[in-house]
Protein backbone atom coordinates (compact mmCIF):
# COMPACT_ATOMS: atom_id res chain seq x y z
CA UNK A 1 0.00 0.00 0.00
CA UNK A 2 1.27 3.44 -0.89
CA UNK A 3 4.11 2.00 -2.91
CA UNK A 4 4.51 4.11 -5.98
CA UNK A 5 2.89 3.06 -9.23
CA UNK A 6 4.62 3.16 -12.60
CA UNK A 7 3.79 2.65 -16.24
CA UNK A 8 6.06 -0.16 -17.41
CA UNK A 9 4.63 -0.95 -20.81
CA UNK A 10 2.64 0.71 -23.56
CA UNK A 11 1.37 -0.61 -26.86
CA UNK A 12 -1.02 0.63 -29.47
CA UNK A 13 -2.59 -0.14 -32.79
CA UNK A 14 -3.57 2.78 -34.95
CA UNK A 15 -4.62 5.42 -35.29
CA UNK A 16 -6.55 5.71 -38.51
CA UNK A 17 -9.94 6.73 -39.85
CA UNK A 18 -10.94 3.17 -40.76
CA UNK A 19 -9.49 -0.20 -39.86
CA UNK A 20 -11.30 -2.73 -42.04
CA UNK A 21 -8.59 -5.35 -41.79
CA UNK A 22 -8.95 -5.74 -38.05
CA UNK A 23 -11.89 -6.72 -35.92
CA UNK A 24 -12.01 -4.94 -32.57
CA UNK A 25 -10.62 -8.09 -30.95
CA UNK A 26 -7.72 -8.21 -33.38
CA UNK A 27 -7.03 -4.53 -32.80
CA UNK A 28 -7.03 -4.98 -29.05
CA UNK A 29 -4.69 -7.95 -29.40
CA UNK A 30 -2.31 -5.95 -31.59
CA UNK A 31 -2.05 -3.25 -28.91
CA UNK A 32 -1.84 -5.74 -26.05
CA UNK A 33 0.90 -7.88 -27.50
CA UNK A 34 3.01 -4.75 -28.02
CA UNK A 35 2.37 -3.47 -24.52
CA UNK A 36 3.26 -6.79 -22.90
CA UNK A 37 6.39 -7.05 -25.02
CA UNK A 38 7.34 -3.52 -24.05
CA UNK A 39 6.84 -4.38 -20.39
CA UNK A 40 8.55 -7.73 -20.70
CA UNK A 41 5.64 -9.62 -19.16
CA UNK A 42 3.48 -12.59 -20.02
CA UNK A 43 -0.14 -11.71 -19.34
CA UNK A 44 -1.09 -15.30 -18.56
CA UNK A 45 1.60 -15.62 -15.96
CA UNK A 46 2.36 -12.14 -14.69
CA UNK A 47 -0.54 -9.72 -15.08
CA UNK A 48 -2.79 -9.90 -12.05
CA UNK A 49 -5.73 -7.74 -13.00
CA UNK A 50 -7.13 -6.22 -16.17
CA UNK A 51 -9.32 -3.21 -16.77
CA UNK A 52 -11.00 -2.19 -19.96
CA UNK A 53 -12.88 1.04 -20.62
CA UNK A 54 -15.86 0.79 -22.93
CA UNK A 55 -19.45 1.81 -23.54
CA UNK A 56 -22.01 -0.66 -24.90
CA UNK A 57 -23.42 1.72 -27.47
CA UNK A 58 -19.99 2.45 -28.87
CA UNK A 59 -19.57 -1.26 -29.50
CA UNK A 60 -23.08 -2.17 -30.55
CA UNK A 61 -23.11 -4.91 -27.96
CA UNK A 62 -24.71 -5.03 -24.53
CA UNK A 63 -22.48 -6.13 -21.69
CA UNK A 64 -19.43 -5.57 -23.86
CA UNK A 65 -17.37 -6.72 -20.88
CA UNK A 66 -18.02 -10.26 -22.16
CA UNK A 67 -15.83 -9.79 -25.18
CA UNK A 68 -12.74 -8.36 -23.51
CA UNK A 69 -10.69 -11.07 -21.82
CA UNK A 70 -9.55 -13.38 -24.62
CA UNK A 71 -7.51 -11.01 -26.70
CA UNK A 72 -5.85 -9.43 -23.66
CA UNK A 73 -4.71 -12.64 -22.00
CA UNK A 74 -7.18 -12.13 -19.17
CA UNK A 75 -9.21 -15.35 -19.27
CA UNK A 76 -10.17 -16.55 -15.78
CA UNK A 77 -8.39 -13.61 -14.21
CA UNK A 78 -9.76 -10.63 -12.32
CA UNK A 79 -10.96 -8.39 -15.08
CA UNK A 80 -13.56 -5.68 -15.14
CA UNK A 81 -14.93 -2.91 -17.29
CA UNK A 82 -15.18 0.72 -16.30
CA UNK A 83 -17.69 2.76 -18.28
CA UNK A 84 -15.40 5.71 -18.49
CA UNK A 85 -12.45 7.22 -20.25
CA UNK A 86 -9.05 5.56 -20.44
CA UNK A 87 -7.78 7.79 -17.65
CA UNK A 88 -10.58 6.50 -15.42
CA UNK A 89 -9.23 3.06 -16.25
CA UNK A 90 -5.72 4.18 -15.42
CA UNK A 91 -6.91 5.63 -12.10
CA UNK A 92 -8.59 2.30 -11.36
CA UNK A 93 -5.38 0.41 -12.04
CA UNK A 94 -3.55 2.83 -9.80
CA UNK A 95 -6.04 2.21 -6.97
CA UNK A 96 -5.83 -1.57 -7.39
CA UNK A 97 -2.07 -1.49 -6.99
CA UNK A 98 -2.31 0.86 -4.03
CA UNK A 99 -4.52 -1.61 -2.18
CA UNK A 100 -1.41 -3.73 -1.94
CA UNK A 101 -3.21 -6.75 -3.39
CA UNK A 102 -1.98 -6.36 -6.97
CA UNK A 103 1.40 -5.47 -8.36
CA UNK A 104 0.89 -5.72 -12.13
CA UNK A 105 -2.22 -4.48 -13.87
CA UNK A 106 -3.15 -3.88 -17.53
CA UNK A 107 -5.52 -1.24 -18.87
CA UNK A 108 -7.09 -1.18 -22.30
CA UNK A 109 -9.20 1.20 -24.34
CA UNK A 110 -10.09 1.35 -28.01
CA UNK A 111 -12.20 3.04 -30.63
CA UNK A 112 -13.93 1.47 -33.59
CA UNK A 113 -15.81 4.65 -34.35
CA UNK A 114 -15.72 3.76 -38.04
CA UNK A 115 -18.05 0.83 -37.32
CA UNK A 116 -20.74 3.00 -35.74
CA UNK A 117 -23.00 3.99 -38.60
CA UNK A 118 -25.26 6.19 -36.50
CA UNK A 119 -22.73 7.75 -34.11
CA UNK A 120 -24.41 11.18 -33.87
CA UNK A 121 -27.72 9.53 -33.03
CA UNK A 122 -26.09 7.35 -30.43
CA UNK A 123 -24.33 10.32 -28.86
CA UNK A 124 -27.69 12.04 -28.73
CA UNK A 125 -28.95 9.08 -26.73
CA UNK A 126 -26.66 10.15 -23.92
CA UNK A 127 -28.77 13.25 -23.49
CA UNK A 128 -31.57 13.23 -20.93
CA UNK A 129 -34.34 11.26 -22.63
CA UNK A 130 -37.19 13.35 -21.34
CA UNK A 131 -36.07 16.96 -21.16
CA UNK A 132 -33.24 17.25 -23.71
CA UNK A 133 -33.40 14.61 -26.39
CA UNK A 134 -36.87 15.54 -27.68
CA UNK A 135 -35.31 18.79 -28.90
CA UNK A 136 -33.80 16.64 -31.63
CA UNK A 137 -30.48 18.46 -31.66
CA UNK A 138 -27.13 17.05 -32.71
CA UNK A 139 -25.21 16.86 -29.45
CA UNK A 140 -22.54 19.26 -30.66
CA UNK A 141 -25.01 22.00 -29.73
CA UNK A 142 -23.93 21.51 -26.15
CA UNK A 143 -20.34 22.26 -27.09
CA UNK A 144 -21.53 25.24 -29.08
CA UNK A 145 -23.40 26.61 -26.05
CA UNK A 146 -20.42 26.06 -23.80
CA UNK A 147 -17.94 27.53 -26.27
CA UNK A 148 -20.07 30.62 -26.68
CA UNK A 149 -20.28 31.20 -22.92
CA UNK A 150 -16.60 30.38 -22.44
CA UNK A 151 -15.57 32.95 -25.04
CA UNK A 152 -17.90 35.49 -23.45
CA UNK A 153 -16.54 35.04 -19.94
CA UNK A 154 -12.89 34.43 -20.68
CA UNK A 155 -12.48 36.94 -23.46
CA UNK A 156 -10.92 34.27 -25.64
CA UNK A 157 -11.42 34.82 -29.36
CA UNK A 158 -12.39 32.65 -32.27
CA UNK A 159 -8.91 33.17 -33.68
CA UNK A 160 -7.38 31.83 -30.50
CA UNK A 161 -9.51 28.71 -30.76
CA UNK A 162 -8.47 28.39 -34.38
CA UNK A 163 -4.84 28.63 -33.34
CA UNK A 164 -5.35 25.46 -31.28
CA UNK A 165 -6.39 23.68 -34.45
CA UNK A 166 -3.38 25.01 -36.35
CA UNK A 167 -0.99 24.00 -33.56
CA UNK A 168 -2.35 20.53 -32.91
CA UNK A 169 -2.81 19.45 -36.48
CA UNK A 170 0.61 20.85 -37.25
CA UNK A 171 2.09 18.85 -34.36
CA UNK A 172 0.37 15.76 -35.72
CA UNK A 173 2.48 15.96 -38.86
CA UNK A 174 5.40 14.80 -36.73
CA UNK A 175 3.45 11.95 -35.15
CA UNK A 176 3.59 8.85 -37.33
CA UNK A 177 0.58 7.42 -35.50
CA UNK A 178 -1.62 10.48 -36.10
CA UNK A 179 -3.87 10.44 -39.17
CA UNK A 180 -5.00 14.06 -39.24
CA UNK A 181 -1.80 16.04 -39.52
CA UNK A 182 -2.20 19.17 -41.62
CA UNK A 183 -0.43 22.43 -42.28
CA UNK A 184 -3.24 24.93 -41.80
CA UNK A 185 -3.52 28.69 -41.74
CA UNK A 186 -5.70 30.39 -39.15
CA UNK A 187 -8.15 31.41 -41.86
CA UNK A 188 -8.55 27.80 -42.93
CA UNK A 189 -9.11 26.70 -39.36
CA UNK A 190 -11.77 29.37 -38.98
CA UNK A 191 -13.46 28.47 -42.24
CA UNK A 192 -15.14 25.43 -43.60
CA UNK A 193 -18.57 24.06 -42.74
CA UNK A 194 -20.37 25.27 -39.66
CA UNK A 195 -21.23 22.82 -36.92
CA UNK A 196 -22.93 24.50 -33.95
CA UNK A 197 -21.95 28.17 -34.08
CA UNK A 198 -19.60 29.45 -32.82
CA UNK A 199 -18.17 25.97 -33.39
CA UNK A 200 -17.26 25.05 -36.92
CA UNK A 201 -16.42 21.56 -38.09
CA UNK A 202 -12.70 22.10 -38.31
CA UNK A 203 -12.61 22.79 -34.59
CA UNK A 204 -14.12 19.42 -33.74
CA UNK A 205 -11.86 16.38 -33.65
CA UNK A 206 -12.74 13.80 -36.26
CA UNK A 207 -12.97 10.22 -35.00
CA UNK A 208 -10.33 7.58 -35.55
CA UNK A 209 -9.97 3.88 -34.81
CA UNK A 210 -7.29 2.45 -32.60
CA UNK A 211 -6.49 0.60 -29.41
CA UNK A 212 -4.12 1.35 -26.55
CA UNK A 213 -2.91 -0.89 -23.75
CA UNK A 214 -0.84 0.19 -20.77
CA UNK A 215 0.77 -1.94 -18.11
CA UNK A 216 1.10 -0.53 -14.59
CA UNK A 217 3.26 -1.98 -11.86
CA UNK A 218 4.01 -1.38 -8.22
CA UNK A 219 7.39 0.19 -7.57
CA UNK A 220 9.15 -3.01 -6.66
CA UNK A 221 7.94 -4.86 -9.72
CA UNK A 222 8.52 -1.83 -11.93
CA UNK A 223 12.16 -1.64 -10.95
CA UNK A 224 12.65 -5.31 -11.76
CA UNK A 225 11.12 -4.85 -15.19
CA UNK A 226 12.51 -1.64 -16.56
CA UNK A 227 15.19 0.96 -16.13
CA UNK A 228 12.71 3.58 -17.28
CA UNK A 229 9.58 3.40 -15.16
CA UNK A 230 7.25 6.35 -15.68
CA UNK A 231 5.83 7.14 -12.26
CA UNK A 232 2.18 7.96 -11.82
CA UNK A 233 2.43 10.78 -9.31
CA UNK A 234 -1.27 11.33 -8.93
CA UNK A 235 -4.67 10.65 -10.44
CA UNK A 236 -7.97 12.45 -10.11
CA UNK A 237 -11.40 12.35 -11.65
CA UNK A 238 -14.66 14.16 -11.15
CA UNK A 239 -18.23 14.46 -12.34
CA UNK A 240 -19.91 17.80 -12.47
CA UNK A 241 -23.67 17.94 -12.89
CA UNK A 242 -25.00 15.71 -15.62
CA UNK A 243 -28.07 17.88 -16.00
CA UNK A 244 -27.51 20.60 -18.60
CA UNK A 245 -29.86 22.78 -16.62
CA UNK A 246 -27.46 22.95 -13.67
CA UNK A 247 -24.25 23.42 -15.60
CA UNK A 248 -21.57 25.95 -15.17
CA UNK A 249 -21.38 26.82 -18.85
CA UNK A 250 -18.01 28.47 -18.96
CA UNK A 251 -15.69 26.48 -16.75
CA UNK A 252 -14.59 22.89 -16.91
CA UNK A 253 -15.25 22.30 -13.22
CA UNK A 254 -14.80 18.53 -13.60
CA UNK A 255 -11.27 19.17 -14.85
CA UNK A 256 -10.51 21.61 -12.05
CA UNK A 257 -11.64 19.17 -9.38
CA UNK A 258 -9.98 16.17 -11.03
CA UNK A 259 -6.74 18.11 -11.17
CA UNK A 260 -7.06 19.16 -7.55
CA UNK A 261 -7.23 15.51 -6.51
CA UNK A 262 -4.30 14.58 -8.73
CA UNK A 263 -2.13 17.51 -7.67
CA UNK A 264 -2.77 16.78 -4.01
CA UNK A 265 -1.48 13.24 -4.39
CA UNK A 266 1.43 14.41 -6.47
CA UNK A 267 2.28 17.04 -3.89
CA UNK A 268 1.96 19.77 -6.51
CA UNK A 269 1.13 23.21 -5.16
CA UNK A 270 2.08 25.24 -8.21
CA UNK A 271 1.17 23.39 -11.37
CA UNK A 272 2.61 26.07 -13.64
CA UNK A 273 6.00 25.36 -12.13
CA UNK A 274 5.71 21.62 -11.71
CA UNK A 275 4.23 20.59 -15.05
CA UNK A 276 6.65 20.67 -17.98
CA UNK A 277 4.21 19.73 -20.72
CA UNK A 278 0.62 18.62 -21.02
CA UNK A 279 -1.69 16.53 -23.13
CA UNK A 280 -5.16 17.93 -22.59
CA UNK A 281 -8.62 17.55 -24.00
CA UNK A 282 -9.13 19.16 -27.39
CA UNK A 283 -12.22 17.27 -28.52
CA UNK A 284 -13.25 20.76 -29.60
CA UNK A 285 -10.56 23.38 -29.98
CA UNK A 286 -11.97 25.71 -27.30
CA UNK A 287 -11.80 22.82 -24.85
CA UNK A 288 -8.02 22.98 -24.87
CA UNK A 289 -8.13 26.59 -23.68
CA UNK A 290 -10.88 25.95 -21.18
CA UNK A 291 -9.16 22.84 -19.82
CA UNK A 292 -5.77 24.53 -19.48
CA UNK A 293 -7.39 27.18 -17.32
CA UNK A 294 -9.31 24.64 -15.27
CA UNK A 295 -6.08 22.73 -14.69
CA UNK A 296 -4.52 25.86 -13.25
CA UNK A 297 -1.88 25.98 -15.99
CA UNK A 298 -3.14 29.36 -17.11
CA UNK A 299 -5.24 31.92 -15.33
CA UNK A 300 -8.77 32.49 -16.45
CA UNK A 301 -8.79 34.25 -19.80
CA UNK A 302 -5.09 33.74 -20.44
CA UNK A 303 -4.95 30.43 -22.24
CA UNK A 304 -6.25 31.98 -25.46
CA UNK A 305 -3.69 34.77 -25.75
CA UNK A 306 -0.92 32.42 -24.60
CA UNK A 307 -1.76 29.96 -27.35
CA UNK A 308 -1.87 32.72 -29.91
CA UNK A 309 1.54 33.81 -28.73
CA UNK A 310 2.87 30.29 -29.16
CA UNK A 311 3.47 29.65 -25.46
CA UNK A 312 1.97 26.17 -25.88
CA UNK A 313 3.75 25.33 -29.11
CA UNK A 314 6.18 22.42 -29.17
CA UNK A 315 9.02 24.83 -28.57
CA UNK A 316 7.08 27.03 -26.17
CA UNK A 317 7.28 27.33 -22.39
CA UNK A 318 4.49 24.79 -21.84
CA UNK A 319 4.11 22.48 -24.84
CA UNK A 320 0.51 21.32 -25.06
CA UNK A 321 -0.69 18.43 -27.21
CA UNK A 322 2.58 17.82 -28.94
CA UNK A 323 1.07 14.51 -30.06
CA UNK A 324 -1.49 16.41 -32.05
CA UNK A 325 -4.21 15.88 -29.44
CA UNK A 326 -7.56 14.53 -30.54
CA UNK A 327 -7.60 17.07 -33.35
CA UNK A 328 -4.48 15.43 -34.77
CA UNK A 329 -4.69 11.82 -33.56
CA UNK A 330 -8.43 11.54 -33.87
CA UNK A 331 -11.21 11.37 -31.34
CA UNK A 332 -10.65 7.89 -29.93
CA UNK A 333 -13.92 7.71 -28.01
CA UNK A 334 -13.29 6.12 -24.60
CA UNK A 335 -9.61 5.56 -25.39
CA UNK A 336 -8.93 9.28 -25.79
CA UNK A 337 -7.41 9.74 -22.34
CA UNK A 338 -5.08 6.81 -22.95
CA UNK A 339 -4.03 8.56 -26.14
CA UNK A 340 -3.07 11.61 -24.08
CA UNK A 341 -1.31 9.46 -21.48
CA UNK A 342 0.53 7.53 -24.20
CA UNK A 343 2.22 10.68 -25.43
CA UNK A 344 3.18 11.72 -21.91
CA UNK A 345 4.78 8.33 -21.31
CA UNK A 346 6.67 8.34 -24.61
CA UNK A 347 7.97 11.86 -23.99
CA UNK A 348 9.11 11.03 -20.47
CA UNK A 349 10.94 7.99 -21.80
CA UNK A 350 12.60 9.93 -24.61
CA UNK A 351 10.79 7.78 -27.17
CA UNK A 352 8.84 10.51 -28.95
CA UNK A 353 11.01 10.60 -32.05
CA UNK A 354 10.71 13.77 -34.07
CA UNK A 355 8.37 15.21 -31.47
CA UNK A 356 10.73 14.69 -28.56
CA UNK A 357 10.71 17.53 -26.05
CA UNK A 358 13.92 18.27 -24.25
CA UNK A 359 14.45 18.07 -20.53
CA UNK A 360 10.98 17.11 -19.51
CA UNK A 361 10.44 15.39 -16.21
CA UNK A 362 6.76 15.90 -15.33
CA UNK A 363 3.81 15.65 -17.70
CA UNK A 364 0.06 15.84 -17.29
CA UNK A 365 -2.67 14.03 -19.19
CA UNK A 366 -6.29 15.11 -19.01
CA UNK A 367 -9.45 13.94 -20.71
CA UNK A 368 -13.18 14.60 -20.94
CA UNK A 369 -15.84 12.09 -21.82
CA UNK A 370 -17.37 14.28 -24.47
CA UNK A 371 -20.86 15.72 -24.92
CA UNK A 372 -23.19 15.62 -23.10
CA UNK A 373 -21.11 14.71 -20.07
CA UNK A 374 -19.34 16.82 -17.50
CA UNK A 375 -16.97 14.05 -16.56
CA UNK A 376 -13.23 13.83 -16.88
CA UNK A 377 -9.98 12.66 -15.39
CA UNK A 378 -6.40 13.76 -14.87
CA UNK A 379 -3.12 11.91 -14.37
CA UNK A 380 0.30 13.33 -13.59
CA UNK A 381 3.44 11.42 -14.55
CA UNK A 382 7.15 11.83 -14.07
CA UNK A 383 10.34 10.03 -15.01
Amino acid at each position, binding site marked *: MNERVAVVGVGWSGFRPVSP*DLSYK*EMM*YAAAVRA*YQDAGVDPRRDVQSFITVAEDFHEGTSIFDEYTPDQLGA*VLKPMHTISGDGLHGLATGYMLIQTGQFSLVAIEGHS*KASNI*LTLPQITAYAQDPVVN*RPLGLNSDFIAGLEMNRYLYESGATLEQCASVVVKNRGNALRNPSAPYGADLEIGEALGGPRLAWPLNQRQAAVHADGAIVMVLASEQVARSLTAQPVWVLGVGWCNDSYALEYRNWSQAVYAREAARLAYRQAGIRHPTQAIDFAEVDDTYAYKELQSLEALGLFRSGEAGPATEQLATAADGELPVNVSGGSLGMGNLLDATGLGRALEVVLQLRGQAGARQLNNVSTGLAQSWRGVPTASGAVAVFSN
Partner: protein
Amino acid sequence: MSESSQNLPGTPLSEKDFQDGLILHSYDEMQARYAWDTGTAIGSYLAALKEGFLLGGRCSTCRRTVIPPRVVCEWCFRPMDEYVPLQDTGTVNTYSLCYVTWDVQRIREPEIPAVIEIDGASPLHGILHKLGEVDPQQVRIGMRVRAVWKEPAERQGAITDILYFKPIEEA
Protein backbone atom coordinates in the same frame (compact mmCIF):
# COMPACT_ATOMS: atom_id res chain seq x y z
CA MET B 1 -33.62 -3.02 8.26
CA SER B 2 -36.82 -3.65 10.03
CA GLU B 3 -39.05 -1.24 8.18
CA SER B 4 -42.27 -2.27 6.65
CA SER B 5 -42.87 -2.21 2.95
CA GLN B 6 -44.97 0.94 3.34
CA ASN B 7 -41.99 2.98 4.41
CA LEU B 8 -39.82 2.03 1.49
CA PRO B 9 -39.62 4.13 -1.64
CA GLY B 10 -40.53 2.66 -5.01
CA THR B 11 -44.02 3.09 -6.46
CA PRO B 12 -45.30 0.14 -8.47
CA LEU B 13 -47.20 0.79 -11.69
CA SER B 14 -49.15 -1.71 -13.74
CA GLU B 15 -49.60 -2.21 -17.47
CA LYS B 16 -53.22 -1.22 -16.95
CA ASP B 17 -52.11 2.16 -15.59
CA PHE B 18 -50.46 2.76 -18.95
CA GLN B 19 -53.39 1.46 -20.96
CA ASP B 20 -55.77 3.67 -19.02
CA GLY B 21 -53.66 6.69 -19.91
CA LEU B 22 -52.82 7.45 -16.30
CA ILE B 23 -49.05 7.59 -16.75
CA LEU B 24 -47.27 10.44 -18.44
CA HIS B 25 -44.49 8.94 -20.51
CA SER B 26 -42.47 9.57 -23.62
CA TYR B 27 -41.67 7.05 -26.30
CA ASP B 28 -38.64 6.82 -28.55
CA GLU B 29 -36.92 4.36 -30.81
CA MET B 30 -33.18 4.16 -30.96
CA GLN B 31 -31.26 4.49 -34.18
CA ALA B 32 -28.34 2.26 -33.40
CA ARG B 33 -26.75 0.77 -36.49
CA TYR B 34 -23.30 -0.69 -36.86
CA ALA B 35 -21.11 -2.31 -39.48
CA TRP B 36 -18.61 -4.43 -37.59
CA ASP B 37 -15.29 -5.17 -39.26
CA THR B 38 -14.98 -8.92 -39.16
CA GLY B 39 -11.18 -8.99 -39.28
CA THR B 40 -9.06 -11.91 -40.36
CA ALA B 41 -10.27 -14.74 -38.17
CA ILE B 42 -14.02 -14.26 -38.31
CA GLY B 43 -13.73 -13.02 -41.87
CA SER B 44 -12.22 -16.38 -42.78
CA TYR B 45 -14.93 -18.18 -40.84
CA LEU B 46 -17.65 -16.36 -42.74
CA ALA B 47 -15.95 -16.92 -46.09
CA ALA B 48 -15.82 -20.64 -45.29
CA LEU B 49 -19.52 -20.65 -44.42
CA LYS B 50 -20.23 -19.17 -47.82
CA GLU B 51 -18.24 -21.99 -49.36
CA GLY B 52 -20.23 -24.50 -47.37
CA PHE B 53 -17.90 -25.64 -44.62
CA LEU B 54 -17.00 -24.92 -41.00
CA LEU B 55 -13.58 -23.51 -40.28
CA GLY B 56 -11.65 -23.89 -37.07
CA GLY B 57 -8.31 -22.72 -35.77
CA ARG B 58 -5.48 -24.57 -34.14
CA CYS B 59 -3.07 -23.53 -31.41
CA SER B 60 0.19 -25.38 -31.77
CA THR B 61 1.16 -24.58 -28.18
CA CYS B 62 -1.79 -26.11 -26.34
CA ARG B 63 -2.81 -28.21 -29.33
CA ARG B 64 -6.45 -27.26 -29.19
CA THR B 65 -8.57 -27.01 -32.28
CA VAL B 66 -11.17 -24.32 -31.72
CA ILE B 67 -14.19 -22.93 -33.48
CA PRO B 68 -14.68 -20.16 -34.49
CA PRO B 69 -11.08 -19.36 -35.41
CA ARG B 70 -9.34 -16.48 -33.62
CA VAL B 71 -6.01 -14.72 -34.05
CA VAL B 72 -4.82 -15.46 -30.54
CA CYS B 73 -5.20 -18.48 -28.29
CA GLU B 74 -6.88 -17.20 -25.17
CA TRP B 75 -5.12 -19.77 -22.99
CA CYS B 76 -1.55 -19.47 -24.22
CA PHE B 77 -1.72 -15.93 -25.55
CA ARG B 78 0.16 -17.19 -28.59
CA PRO B 79 -0.83 -16.23 -32.14
CA MET B 80 -3.15 -18.71 -33.79
CA ASP B 81 -2.62 -18.66 -37.51
CA GLU B 82 -3.36 -22.24 -38.45
CA TYR B 83 -6.83 -22.60 -39.97
CA VAL B 84 -8.36 -26.06 -39.98
CA PRO B 85 -11.37 -27.09 -42.03
CA LEU B 86 -13.75 -29.04 -39.83
CA GLN B 87 -16.62 -31.34 -40.61
CA ASP B 88 -20.18 -30.17 -40.61
CA THR B 89 -21.28 -32.89 -38.25
CA GLY B 90 -21.23 -32.91 -34.50
CA THR B 91 -22.69 -33.96 -31.20
CA VAL B 92 -25.30 -32.15 -29.17
CA ASN B 93 -23.62 -30.95 -25.96
CA THR B 94 -26.79 -29.35 -24.64
CA TYR B 95 -30.10 -28.10 -25.99
CA SER B 96 -33.37 -26.46 -25.01
CA LEU B 97 -36.92 -26.33 -26.30
CA CYS B 98 -37.86 -22.70 -26.36
CA TYR B 99 -41.47 -21.55 -26.67
CA VAL B 100 -40.73 -17.83 -26.48
CA THR B 101 -39.01 -15.76 -29.18
CA TRP B 102 -36.31 -13.22 -28.46
CA ASP B 103 -38.93 -10.47 -28.44
CA VAL B 104 -41.21 -12.35 -26.12
CA GLN B 105 -43.74 -13.78 -28.56
CA ARG B 106 -45.21 -17.13 -27.65
CA ILE B 107 -44.76 -19.85 -30.28
CA ARG B 108 -46.40 -23.26 -30.60
CA GLU B 109 -43.55 -25.17 -32.18
CA PRO B 110 -40.44 -24.68 -30.07
CA GLU B 111 -37.18 -23.37 -31.41
CA ILE B 112 -34.44 -25.81 -30.48
CA PRO B 113 -31.21 -23.98 -29.69
CA ALA B 114 -28.22 -26.22 -29.06
CA VAL B 115 -24.51 -26.17 -28.44
CA ILE B 116 -23.08 -28.59 -30.98
CA GLU B 117 -19.56 -29.94 -30.51
CA ILE B 118 -18.15 -29.95 -34.01
CA ASP B 119 -16.32 -33.01 -35.34
CA GLY B 120 -12.67 -32.17 -35.85
CA ALA B 121 -12.57 -29.58 -33.07
CA SER B 122 -11.28 -30.40 -29.61
CA PRO B 123 -13.79 -31.90 -27.16
CA LEU B 124 -16.25 -29.43 -25.69
CA HIS B 125 -15.55 -27.00 -28.52
CA GLY B 126 -18.78 -26.24 -30.26
CA ILE B 127 -20.99 -23.56 -31.71
CA LEU B 128 -24.44 -22.22 -30.93
CA HIS B 129 -27.03 -23.11 -33.54
CA LYS B 130 -30.50 -24.54 -33.84
CA LEU B 131 -31.83 -28.01 -34.49
CA GLY B 132 -34.46 -28.76 -37.11
CA GLU B 133 -36.22 -31.63 -38.82
CA VAL B 134 -36.48 -33.36 -35.48
CA ASP B 135 -39.25 -34.13 -33.02
CA PRO B 136 -38.46 -31.91 -30.04
CA GLN B 137 -39.21 -34.72 -27.61
CA GLN B 138 -36.60 -36.94 -29.31
CA VAL B 139 -33.69 -34.58 -28.88
CA ARG B 140 -31.01 -35.86 -26.52
CA ILE B 141 -27.67 -34.69 -25.24
CA GLY B 142 -25.18 -36.79 -27.17
CA MET B 143 -27.29 -36.88 -30.31
CA ARG B 144 -25.32 -36.88 -33.54
CA VAL B 145 -26.29 -34.15 -35.99
CA ARG B 146 -25.38 -32.75 -39.39
CA ALA B 147 -25.67 -29.25 -40.81
CA VAL B 148 -28.35 -28.45 -43.34
CA TRP B 149 -27.04 -25.73 -45.61
CA LYS B 150 -28.70 -23.07 -47.71
CA GLU B 151 -28.30 -23.43 -51.46
CA PRO B 152 -24.91 -22.02 -52.55
CA ALA B 153 -26.55 -19.15 -54.39
CA GLU B 154 -28.37 -18.09 -51.26
CA ARG B 155 -25.41 -18.13 -48.91
CA GLN B 156 -24.16 -14.77 -47.70
CA GLY B 157 -21.14 -15.62 -45.58
CA ALA B 158 -23.11 -15.72 -42.36
CA ILE B 159 -23.86 -18.22 -39.61
CA THR B 160 -27.35 -18.48 -41.08
CA ASP B 161 -25.87 -20.10 -44.22
CA ILE B 162 -26.48 -23.16 -42.10
CA LEU B 163 -30.25 -23.39 -41.71
CA TYR B 164 -30.07 -25.80 -38.79
CA PHE B 165 -28.57 -29.13 -37.74
CA LYS B 166 -30.60 -32.30 -38.09
CA PRO B 167 -30.12 -35.79 -36.66
CA ILE B 168 -27.82 -38.05 -38.60
CA GLU B 169 -29.73 -41.14 -39.73
CA GLU B 170 -28.54 -44.38 -38.22
CA ALA B 171 -26.78 -46.47 -40.86
